[in-house]
């Protein structure tokens, strides 16, 4: 079957410039909203969930769902680290576990306002635990027993007193910032120091959790099961990956749902817009359709030509929408982690998934918006269409 | 009121089209007496419609004077022209040009909205006009529900609803079959004879032109001839 030449479609779009541009802009804005939410979700996902390690285990008090709720006295965390055979050992035969104290503390932002920033007191073993994934980008590590801090790289620009050499007062104790580090995920928006020093400065009696590297091939489920029933130090054990995803599923899902909801509602509105645009195209070109039909083009070819035109509009809108969101790629944003009431910083990420989803969505909008008008065009009787001027 | 409803002196009008200058009217003089019925004939591109637009105040000449109903149209602003048209001219077009969304009566009533008449008066006047064209039965029909001849009669009713001095018709029978055309021409003649309307009608059709008192022949923007049609000339203007 002969198709209506594509050049007809392109010319038509070009001739009706204002309509084409306006429809594209309208669909573009809709797609932009969806892409925007997806970029957030993707950024969040890569930041937190995908970076979690399977080799590291998190030990918390039973029942706790986040480290803010968990507590161990030093005596118990020592037992956990020393007497759990599944924990790997370093070259010197020391177990690779670090007890951590965690507290979110109000800090001033550079642009004004206050928000909670997570402070984490860690054991020296922590650097061995994280290995290459934790790098000092500036300055040096804190020294054991010293009132020194290292700051996650996402914080330096955004909070006051976070540059190397600054003095930061924790409760009433002055600490010196000696380094900037780059870790994974949320570590970049944390401030770290010696666990004993921070416990004292923060007047905390308990540690929050234990992080440990497991020996290769450890059955973590068996370990979790055993420790949950342990008499001396009952503990809840998760891999780091599990822990991180449990911390963020709600928020990640919220972005996803919100993106879907907003995109959906706006999408319906955009379909109406597209349908409208195509209907007025067809009304204006009734005579042309009559000519095409009388020349011998089949109704299906007409249907296809108009559907194609609508989908081209959708495609243009989709690309435009992605373009609108593109400048946000890599931009950092923060939002509250409802579990810890502290800010998590992450970056918008324009992944291929986002692009494909956004353009696909735009094509669907074009298809749905164009189908009915195209059907109407295809069903016209050539004589009636020709008579209309 | 002057003796002559229309007086054109040295009227010139040209257009730019595709970068070329097109002299449509080249110094035209024309006089039409009050109460006359002129048919305007000539080949395509001879300037018939341009002349009609100038007389109807839809267009302005580049040079020359256009006196219609005692006004020098060249001196009027756009807004004044609009008011002048409402007061003096009724148009009838080839394509009927009724508003498709309104019924016959509403179409006829439309220009009356420009007057201070009450709603009821407007309605009555519109109904009288429709009665005059013989379409009382069809008042509530939309244009799409009327035949071509009926549509054109509604358009004529609309043109006379304001009781204008002058009716300008651009190929009023161009889209009609013979019988319907005859009816419309008869109606125009009747308006001319019985109500004393001055009529200028552009037409291609010699048979249509026979209904007029004078036939003006235009060619290449110049007046070629004016022939009188003795049996149609009214006894006394």
């Amino acid at each position, binding site marked *: 079957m002969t198709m209506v030449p594509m050049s007809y479609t392109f010319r038509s779009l070009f001739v009706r410039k204002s309509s084409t541009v306006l429809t594209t*802009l309208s669909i573009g804005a809709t797609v932009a909203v969806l892409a925007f939410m997806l970029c957030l979700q993707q950024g969040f996902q890569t930041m937190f969930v995908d970076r979690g390690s399977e080799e590291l285990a998190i030990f918390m008090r039973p*029942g706790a769902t986040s480290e803010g709720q968990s507590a161990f006295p030093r005596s118990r965390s020592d037992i956990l680290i020393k007497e759990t055979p599944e924990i790997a050992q370093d070259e010197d035969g020391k177990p690779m576990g670090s007890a951590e104290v965690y507290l979110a503390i*109000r800090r001033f932002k550079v642009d004004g*306002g206050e928000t909670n920033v997570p402070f984490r007191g860690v054991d020296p073993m922590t650097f061995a635990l994280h290995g290459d994934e934790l790098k000092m980008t500036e300055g040096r590590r804190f020294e054991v027993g010293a009132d020194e801090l290292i700051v996650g790289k996402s914080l330096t620009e955004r909070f006051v007193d976070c540059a190397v050499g600054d003095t930061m007062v924790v409760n009433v104790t002055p600490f010196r910032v000696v380094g900037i580090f780059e870790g994974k995920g949320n570590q970049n928006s944390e401030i770290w120091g010696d666990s004993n020093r921070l416990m004292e400065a*923060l007047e905390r009696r308990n540690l929050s959790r234990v992080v440990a590297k497991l020996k290769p091939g450890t059955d973590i489920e068996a370990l979790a099961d055993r420790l949950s029933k342990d008499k001396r130090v009952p503990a809840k054990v998760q891999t780091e990956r599990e822990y991180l995803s449990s911390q963020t599923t709600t928020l990640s899902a919220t972005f996803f749902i919100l993106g879907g909801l907003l995109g959906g509602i706006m999408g319906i509105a955009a379909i109406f817009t597209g349908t409208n645009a195509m209907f007025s195209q067809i009304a*204006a070109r009734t005579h042309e359709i009559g000519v095409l039909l009388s020349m011998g083009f089949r109704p299906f070819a007409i249907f296809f030509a108009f559907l194609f035109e609508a989908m081209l509009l959708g495609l243009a809108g989709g690309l435009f929408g992605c373009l609108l969101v593109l400048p946000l790629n890599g931009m950092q944003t923060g939002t509250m982690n409802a579990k810890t*009431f502290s800010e998590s910083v992450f970056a918008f990420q324009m992944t291929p998934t986002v692009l494909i989803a956004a353009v696909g969505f735009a094509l669907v909008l074009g298809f749905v918006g164009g189908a009915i008008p195209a059907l109407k065009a295809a069903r016209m009787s050539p004589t009636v269409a020709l008579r209309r001027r | 009121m002057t003796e002559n409803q229309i007086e054109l002196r040295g009227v010139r009008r040209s257009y730019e089209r595709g970068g070329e200058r097109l002299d449509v009217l080249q110094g035209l003089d024309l006089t039409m007496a009050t109460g006359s019925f002129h048919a305007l004939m000539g080949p395509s591109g001879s300037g018939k419609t341009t002349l009609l637009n100038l007389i109807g105040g839809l267009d302005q000449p580049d040079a020359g004077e256009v006196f219609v109903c005692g006004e020098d149209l060249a001196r009027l602003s756009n807004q004044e022209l609009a008011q002048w048209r409402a007061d003096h001219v009724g148009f009838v*077009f080839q394509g009927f040009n009724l508003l498709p969304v309104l019924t016959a009566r509403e179409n006829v009533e439309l220009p009356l909205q*420009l007057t201070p008449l009450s709603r009821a008066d407007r309605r009555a006047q519109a109904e009288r006009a429709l009665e005059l064209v013989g379409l009382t039965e069809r008042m509530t029909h939309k244009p799409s529900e009327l035949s071509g001849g009926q549509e054109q009669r509604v358009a004529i009713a609309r043109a006379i609803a304001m009781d204008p001095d002058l009716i300008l018709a651009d190929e009023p029978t161009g889209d009609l079959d013979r019988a319907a055309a005859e009816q419309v021409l008869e109606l125009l003649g009747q308006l001319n004879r019985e109500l004393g309307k001055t009529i200028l009608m552009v037409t291609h059709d010699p048979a249509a032109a026979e209904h007029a008192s004078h036939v003006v022949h235009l060619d290449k923007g110049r007046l070629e001839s004016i022939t009188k049609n003795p049996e149609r000339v009214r006894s006394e203007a």
Partner: protein
Amino acid sequence: MLRLVLRNLLAHKTRSALTMCSMAFAVCLMCILQASLIGLESAVTNAAVNRLWIQSAVSLFVPLPMSYEAKIESVAGVEHACKFQWFGGIYQDESNFFAQFGIDPDSFQDCYPELEIVEGSYEAFAQNRRGCIIGEGLAEKYGFALGDTVPIIGTIFPRTGGGAWEFVVEAIYRPRTTAMDRVTMYFDFAYLEEALRAGDSRGAQGVGVFLAKLDDDADPTEAMGAIDGFFENGPQRVQTTTEAEFGRQFLSMLGNVPAMLAAVGGAVLFAIFFAVLNTMLAAGRERMRAVGILKAMGFRNGFVFSTLLVESLVLCTAGAAIGLGISIGLEGGLQSAFAGMIQSFEISSQVALGSLVIAIVIGTVAGIAPGRSAARVSTIQALRTQA
């Protein structure tokens, strides 16, 4: 003229309906976004001026000694002090998030004149150690009724033997203003404290924050200074803030969320504006010949202009009215859907008016473009246009 406008709209039923629907959806979305924004900020904007919040100077998450209650009450200008302990428990599943606070029944009601008991009685709650008082939003969402036992799994305060805490619903409240949300559970702090002391539950002893209700004639700034000063030398320093400031710290934790909501609203506006403009331009194009006829008859440019403008306005306001209707219809459902995330969700007259104004502005601007070209086009050209 209105008749002409209405006839034109009715003559293109599909187009009018589609445009109105997209307008309706857009307005509905804008209402929801706007209401969410206002709701998020309501804790700050509607904060009481005579309530102060006292937290540890170190961190919100460091508890204060219980003995501070009497000390705070001794400060001049303080009428009552009330303990507030964030419980952070889970009802059945983590996704069922709502806040629970341990409070002092003997002072809580005096601190919150906003509290209106709609079912049960405050006295019954005060007398039952395991009693709780819940917001009507919780009653609606989870079907809790008076006398029901609500099991809550402790996370900060887990029961030693495992299992859930059990609270008995003794009263249901409704907030009189949006300074308070309608989805919180309040229970007797003493119940928690006794369990901790008896070893039935693990967790830190102490009080998260204190609430101080001031005398009517007390100066909040003075009282804040006095309270902070009182504990300057320990054992634990405190930070006293106004209720607005206290609310703001939670709002600022949301980071860019309010800005994002606003950005989405902007995109909605953007999309709908182009959609309406497109419709009106199409309407204007199709109407060119009619414009020519009207002008030939002697109608002024202004009339032609206003027919298109009014048409656009009618479309937009009608669409906006429908959208507003939908969002008011959705209000109840969204209120419970957003419960816990947003303090209060209300399609207020402010929101409604805002959306209508936006619709009218869009309608006006979108009507001007085709209206102007219709007013400007020469009569002859308009008549020559093919319909």
